[in-house]
Each structure stands twice: as C-alpha cells, then as structure tokens.
C-alpha cells in the first residue's frame, strides 16, 4: 500500500464531525438569542451581574488567548484590565467623552502597554514570564494610589456617561458588553484560521520548525502578548463601564490570579461558551456566595484542582499500577 493510500484510512469520521459542528453552531446561536432576550424577563441585579460577567469573560479570553497561542501564563493581566478601566474613567473625567472613543482607545493603550512589557521580556517563558507579570499586578495598586491626581486614589472614579442617551443604564451596560463579547469571539474564531494565528500556533508547538519558516520566537511572544493585553484592556474598559466605577480595590493582585482561574475553569477555550463559563465562574461565584467571604479563594482553589484533574484524567493513568495503565 502506498503512502497516499494510507491517508484514506482516517477519512471515515469526517461526515459525523461536520454534523457535530453544525449542532455546536446552532447551540451557540440559541445561547446568544437567549442572552439577547433575557432583559425582557430579568431585571436589576441579574442584568448588572451578567454585564460584569460578559466583561470578565473577555478578560478570561485574553488570558486563554495567551495560553493557547503563546503557551504562556500570566498572573498579572489585572494590570491591563485596570489600564482599560481607568482609560474609560479618566477620558470621561478629563475630556468628557464617552466609551465610543475610550473603548477603542483602551484597546490601543493596552496593546501599547503589552508591547512595552513584552519586548524586554521576549526571552522569558514559563514560570519566569509568569513571575514578571506578577510584578505588574503587585505594582498596580501602588501606581493607582500614587497617581491620585488622575486616578482618584483610594476612592477611584465614577463612570456616568452613557453611550446611547435615553436608554436605561442597565440595558446599555448589558447589551454593549454582550455585543463586544460576541464580536470578540467571532474575531477570535476568524483569527484561528488567519496566517498570523497559524504562525503563532506553529511557533508554540514547534519553535525550531517555525523559525525555519521565518517565524521567530521573539515575534511570536511579542505579538501574542500585545494582542492579549489589548483584549484585557478592552475587557477592563467594559468592566469599568458596566460597574460605573473604578477603584484600586477592583484590581488587586488576586484579580489577576482569578482571571487565570477563570481561564483554567473554561479549559482555556476561546469560544463564546467557554468564555462565558470562565467569566460566570469568577463573577457570579463571589457575587452569589458573598456570605462565604474568605472561603471564595478556597473554593477557587478546589475548583482549580478538580478541573485540572478532570481535564488531565487521561494523563492520570500513569499513577495507576502498571497492570491497569490501559
């Protein structure tokens, strides 16, 4: 049998897979439709939590994107989220302009900050990069308090301006956050097939081979971090907008860790539904378990362990006695 004939062997499963994809697409459409209609039924607090959930879902996506395309972990993405949130607040306070301008501006500033961070750290990877990002998250509260003149110090700033005058604030927050989340997940689906997306995946899986195709590791690291930071900042801008306020309390070291928790819980997925799972986990769990207080991080820890164990269940077999390994 020739090599080319061998290739046919694995073709059997393809039609079934195609049907599966259509079903997945339909269920995502149904999910979006349900979310679009939800404000007709639900009110006040649920809409507010869901708006925050969408914004957090975007922040989780930014971390997952870095994991998927860069193979890197960041525990300091709260820095870029804060940058976006404060961009919206400061632009409103100083210039009186709504998020129509500050939302794209936040993404641009996030990209700029991501690049400024990634370029000098382009030779760092793994735990070293994670620790470097941790420095960002640790420095953040000090920076926010230090630049009190702009950031409002401990008290933070309010965000009051509407994007669409006359529409209720709750509905605006909800629909704009949802629209951006849907748009970003569509963009990410498109990115997976783009030349840059393929190049980044190759650079992560086979760095040497990628290099031989003209894709350098520094290019890959700097680009994915810049993109991820831009997305985090965009998410931050929406977080600020949806919660109508920014303050150093919302961007502690732990919020960076929680974003990573959200990413792990969503299995680093880049789809809309994965992002919603991650966003919902880090938004709704603390909101609805507010009484649990100090137990929330413990719960997160347990969830992390469980998800990691379940996701890697296949690999766990090697801990079994040899006879039962298969």
């Amino acid at each position: 049998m020739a090599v080319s004939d061998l290739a046919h062997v694995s073709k059997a499963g393809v039609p079934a897979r195609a049907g599966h994809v259509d079903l997945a697409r339909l269920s995502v459409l149904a999910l979006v439709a349900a979310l679009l209609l939800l404000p007709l039924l639900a009110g006040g607090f649920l809409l507010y939590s869901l708006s925050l959930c969408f914004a957090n879902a975007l922040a989780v996506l930014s971390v997952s994107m870095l994991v998927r395309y860069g193979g890197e972990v960041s525990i300091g993405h709260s820095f870029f989220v804060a940058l976006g949130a404060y961009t919206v607040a400061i632009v409103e306070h100083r210039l009186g302009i709504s998020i129509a301008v500050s939302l794209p501006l936040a993404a641009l500033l996030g990209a700029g900050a991501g690049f400024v961070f990634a370029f000098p750290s382009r030779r760092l990877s793994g735990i070293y990069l994670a620790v470097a990002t941790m420095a960002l998250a640790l420095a953040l509260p000090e920076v926010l308090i230090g630049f009190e003149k702009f950031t409002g110090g401990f008290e933070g700033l309010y965000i009051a301006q509407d994007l669409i005058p006359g529409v209720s604030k709750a509905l605006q927050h909800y629909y704009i956050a949802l629209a951006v989340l849907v748009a970003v997940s569509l963009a990410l689906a498109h990115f997976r097939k783009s030349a840059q997306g393929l190049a980044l995946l190759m650079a992560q899986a086979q760095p040497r081979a990628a290099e031989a195709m003209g894709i350098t590791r520094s290019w890959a690291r700097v680009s994915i971090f810049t993109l991820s930071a831009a997305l985090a900042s965009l998410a931050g801008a929406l977080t600020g907008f949806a919660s109508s306020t920014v303050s150093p309390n919302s961007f502690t070291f732990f919020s960076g860790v929680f974003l990573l928790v959200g990413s792990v819980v969503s299995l680093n997925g880049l789809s809309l539904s994965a992002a919603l799972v991650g966003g919902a986990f880090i938004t709704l769990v603390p909101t609805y378990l507010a009484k649990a207080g100090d137990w929330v991080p413990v719960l997160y820890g347990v969830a992390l362990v469980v998800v990691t164990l379940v996701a890697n269940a296949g690999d766990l077999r090697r801990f079994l006695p040899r006879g039962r390994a298969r």
Partner: protein
Amino acid sequence: MTDVVSSDGLVAEGISLAFGGLQVLSDVSMILRPGVITGLIGPNGAGKTSLFNCLSGLYHGQRGHSSFAGASLKGLGPAQRAACGITRSFQNLAMCPDLSLLENVLVGLTLKRRSGWFSAFVPTPSQRLDQQEAERRAMAALNELGIASAAHDKPSDLPPGTLRLAEIARAIASEPKAILLDEPAAGLNAVETRDLTRALKRLMRPDLVLLVVEHDMDLIMELCEQIYVLNFGKMIASGTPAEIRAHPDVIRVYLGDDSDD
C-alpha cells in the same frame, strides 16, 4: 547580476564547529549546485546534522563561511535564511498537532502571506483572496506529493510516511530556492521510502538546490547525483554515486575497519 551568481548555489567553505572542547566539524566544505540532488551521508555521530544546522542557520561555525547565490549568509539565523529562500525539514516530524495537515502546510507560506493584523481578526476581501491563494498553493504542494486526500486530517491520525511527505510539501509550498531535508526517510518502511524517492525526483527543478541528509545508503545512491561523505567531522569523500561506491575511505568507514583509527 543574480542570474550569474545564482549558479553558485549554496556554498559552505571551511566550516569548523566545536561545542566546548568537542570538535564536531573541522574544515568542511561543500557546494550544493542548483538542479542537482546532493546527498550527505556518514555514520551516526559523523556531524551530518551539525553541518545541516550550520547550513540552515541554527548553528554558527567558529570558522568558515557560507553563501547562497553569491550572497554571504554570515550571521543570519534560520528565520532570515528562510527569507532568503532556504527551507529545511526536521528529523523528528515537526508538525503542529492542533492544525490539520493543510494548515500545517499553510504555515510554510507565512512569509508569502500579505494579510495584515487587521484582517487577521476581521474578514476583508483582500484577506479572503490571500487565503484562497495560499490554500491553492498548499493544496498544489500536497497534490505534488500525492497526499492531498489527507489535507483535512490531523497529524496524529496519519502514518509517519504521510507526515514526512507533508513536511516536504510544507518546504516546497513557499517555492523556495533551496530545500534541506534532514533524514527524510527516518522511520519509514520500504514502500514509503520508495514513494519518497519518487516524490523527491519529481519535484527536482533546474533552479532548485536540494540537499538530502541520510544514513540510508541505498536511498542516497538511488536519489543523488552528487554525494558528500562525512566521518568524525571531516569530509572524507565527494563525487558521483559510482565514485563514492568505489572510494576506499568510504568502504573502510562503512565496512567498519577498526585498524584505521
């Protein structure tokens, strides 16, 4: 000007490479002419892959000089050499497991793609054209190697023979001026090796530099017109298959005569 010098092909002169105190290559020279399939053989540990890595820019020899089409390659890394039109394959199959075979080949076209960062996220007409053109070229490369039917499969679902051919498809998709293949027949069975030999002969063109590094003597003898033999980091022979077969040093190395050492 390029026409005159392009006949020079890929030239390595007096390459010496040492890792610490270990001399891996000493004063090795090699000329890879366009239109000729050149083979590099030698026993395990002879320095074949080291020389190969020097040519592809992964290693830089302490001494010596390499040039391509008359232009010096001094100080250029793999990515820059790729931009000069030199591509290589890898001994261990370097496929990305998350990508289909077609997508793995598409990555080989990265330097030829014209879509910018904006169109990476937002579909645009020009990006669609670029995508179609890239897919057409990748499919053509897969077709040339006879594995187009596996285009949409994941590498983990495919036999090593197909993946080897896919690596070569990826290397030729970008229409490079030089292709360096590192042990393309490693791990292949006799039938797959025969298919590979045919595929390589078929893709040979008068303006293409093609180097095959192998320790499979039979494959090299059948495929190559010009053969270099490396042993203990030194070039011990070069010539046509017939000359190499009759060369006393080569016979000694391959028959394992110990009295030489």
